């Protein structure tokens, strides 16, 4: 097969000593920026671009890809241990991961995240190598109507993150939707809910909200003694490593997460977050013990972590085959290609095969490096939980603030961090779930844009929303996901599973 021949050629490029070194630097940097809340891979790659100008293209692109993959690994660490997601794609991981960490199962949670990332990254990279042309065709067939259906599907599954009260969950979701309205409306160019403040014209940064609600809110909650029960955090209980049971419960979510994350990452308007939402909801639906969700179900860590890594590989599909950047990081990597006079697209595979296949091959190697780098670190990371609480949360607050200010040095941003931190405290204090706020903030604007775009293209004819089999299938699944449980309850009143999802914070 031609592909394997190319891949072997690519491996010989990627295994050159200097390229290995670039890969190692990339994954290490990536892991670090993933761990630090607020600083993301896009910013890191952008800052490195001018420095790498003089390096050879293969080496620096390999390094950038390493940063991208590494940050997806690193993002889970603070989510799980500190309930402070470093990236919006690891918000969902915090839901179950942090619950596990609190009862001494931080080790297995980090391990399933790392191995899941490895499995997903490897499978998705194979997908990138073998299926790219077909995946791209599928992704391009997605018009605004289909995207809207996907958003509806994502909304229908949000309830999985609601906790025990639908009313409170919906309240939190609508809070997020409202925050999503802030800023200049893309379709009309008019500013909404920004009260004449230019700083709000670009909308509210998802990362700032996520870091504020989770990390700052949690810190305030603990500092205010809201946690009067004096819950003790056990750093390690039982094995640091995954048990046989953990493996059994993890491998299917890994694969499902990959299958969900990869195509959504490849969609020009998909993004890593939506895959994690869908994966979490799927795992909760399919789990043997759904009542464990909200109390530290390992499936809820394994699935979403696999999904966000698979989507990182998915993002490279349209980037390499079409020159389409579908995420902030991909957009900056595109600028990286262009600074070497390379135009990603159908011709890149023909003109510079050694570069493309070298990059793909180095992704496999980056994955292995990340696994080797991350597994031994787990023992070190869980010790973080043994730090006395005042110090630990003081540190979290410092890093959250530094990260946010590092990404955007502005007083308004800092003010928002504190304001949303207070909001996060309020939500916790009165038992409202946090994740739906972030979900609403991410999904709301996307859904609105796609709906209005679709209606603009069809000149107001709503049938465009049901215009393709793909859209109809997704809308049907959304319908079943929303009303299925309700009907189930109606017909089986005595056997109705009571929602046991706990107070999520």
């Amino acid at each position, binding site marked *: 097969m031609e592909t394997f021949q190319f891949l072997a050629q690519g491996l010989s490029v990627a295994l050159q000593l200097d390229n290995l070194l670039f890969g190692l630097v990339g994954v290490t940097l990536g892991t670090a920026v993933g761990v630090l809340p607020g600083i993301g891979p896009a910013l890191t790659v952008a800052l490195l671009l001018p420095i790498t100008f003089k390096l050879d293209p293969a080496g620096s692109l390999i390094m950038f890809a390493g940063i991208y993959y590494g940050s997806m690994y690193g993002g889970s660490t603070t989510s799980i241990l500190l309930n402070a997601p470093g990236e919006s794609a690891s918000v969902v991981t915090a839901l179950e991961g942090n619950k596990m960490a609190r009862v001494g199962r931080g080790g297995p949670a980090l391990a399933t995240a790392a191995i899941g990332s490895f499995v997903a990254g490897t499978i998705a990279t194979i997908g990138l190598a073998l299926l790219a042309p077909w995946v791209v065709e599928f992704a391009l067939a997605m018009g605004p109507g289909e995207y809207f259906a996907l958003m509806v599907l994502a909304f229908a599954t949000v309830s999985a993150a609601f906790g025990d009260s639908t009313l409170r969950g919906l309240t939190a979701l609508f809070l997020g939707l409202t925050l999503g309205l802030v800023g200049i409306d893309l379709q009309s160019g*008019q500013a909404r809910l920004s009260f004449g403040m230019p700083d709000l014209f670009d909308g509210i940064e998802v990362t700032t909200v996520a870091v504020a609600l989770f990390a700052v809110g949690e810190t305030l909650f603990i500092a205010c003694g809201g946690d009067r029960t004096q819950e003790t955090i056990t750093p390690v209980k039982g094995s640091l490593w995954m048990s046989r049971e953990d493996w059994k419960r993890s491998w299917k979510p890994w694969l499902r997460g990959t299958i969900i994350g990869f195509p959504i990452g490849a969609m020009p308007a998909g993004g890593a977050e939506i895959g994690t939402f869908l994966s979490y909801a799927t795992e909760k639906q399919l789990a043997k013990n759904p009542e464990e969700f909200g109390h530290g179900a390992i499936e809820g860590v394994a699935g979403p972590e696999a999904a966000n890594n698979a989507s990182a590989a998915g993002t490279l599909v349209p980037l390499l085959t079409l020159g389409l950047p*579908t995420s902030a990081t991909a957009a900056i990597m595109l*600028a990286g290609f262009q600074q070497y006079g390379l135009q*990603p697209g159908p011709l890149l595979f023909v003109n510079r095969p050694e570069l493309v296949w070298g990059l793909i091959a180095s992704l496999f190697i980056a994955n292995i490096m990340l696994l080797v780098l991350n597994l031994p670190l787990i023992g070190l990371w869980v010790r973080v939980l043994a730090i006395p609480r005042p110090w630990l949360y003081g540190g979290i607050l410092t890093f959250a603030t530094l990260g946010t200010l590092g990404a955007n040095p502005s007083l308004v941003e800092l003010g928002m961090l504190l304001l949303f931190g207070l909001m996060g405290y309020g939500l916790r204090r009165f038992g409202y779930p946090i994740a739906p706020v972030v979900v609403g903030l991410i999904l709301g604007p996307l859904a609105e844009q796609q709906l209005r775009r679709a209606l603009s293209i069809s000149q107001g004819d709503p049938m465009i929303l049901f215009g393709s089999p793909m859209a109809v299938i997704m809308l049907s699944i959304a319908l079943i996901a929303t009303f299925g449980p309700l009907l189930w309850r109606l017909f089986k009143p005595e056997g109705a599973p009571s929602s046991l999802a706990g107070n999520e914070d």
Partner: protein
Amino acid sequence: MLHRIRDSVLGVLVASTFATMAAAAPSQLSIMAPAAPGGGYDQTARSIQSVLQESKTVPNVQVTNVPGAGGAVGLAQFANNAKGDATQLIVGGYVMVGALIANKSPVTLDNVTPLARLTGESDAIVVPVNSPLKTMEDLVKALKADPGKVSWAGGSAGGVDHIAVGLIAKKVGVDPTKINYVPYSGGGEALAAILGGQVTAGISGVSEFEGQVAAGKLRLLAITGGKRLPNVNAPTLKESGVDVEVENWRMVAAAPGITAAQKADLLSTIETMVKSEGWKKILTSKNWADSYLAGDAFATYLKNQTADTTQVLKDIGVLK
């Protein structure tokens, strides 16, 4: 007298650029890119940085990023904090002009000292390769027949792409408020919609579409700049019978309240840079046209652009 003659001879010998530079260039500069790292303003600022530093024109150049509101946030901060400081520069451009007008920003380019226009990027108008529209004339015909049926994918509402479509409509006698412009948040997303056949036509920077045009997936109907591009096989709008010229230009400005002498020094530093080999290399690698225009000529241009853009934004309904 002899002294002066010797000096001027030397000046000619050493090439005028070197002489002016040695006399005037500051030892350090700080350039604000009023956008996040990676975007057009950031790349412009960092290109200026690398050329000035590598040619040793200015030994120490720093770039800071202040993103927000199409450059308005950075501009406001710059106008307030840099007053009278000749070591600070800000990068801006056409997108900023439009954003300042559309958002009715209290701080405008009148609050800084514009120095020179540096680069220009032409927009390209494309259709999917299987589209029945073969030329710009076909597209204009379709637009005249039913403006609502021709959907255009491009960048943000009120941005350069949107303005260009509005101008085209107006010039060919179509009501600009009737155009069906579908804004996308980035060139990539718009490109996907065009390739996927979701829209009739697409409009964005030439470099965004280059790869797809070369690969035969998109047909390039026209470019919006005033002159044909060396590596691009497409007529200008004017050659296609539409009297419109739009370029996404970028500029550099100095702080408000600097002296005339300081302004002259900065202008000569910029001129040295624009004429250097390093700058030319960057223009080629990034596909930017050299649209250098400095001093008073640029100030007049800026005034006209602001007036024209205000009118267009009203025409397309972004400015109410």
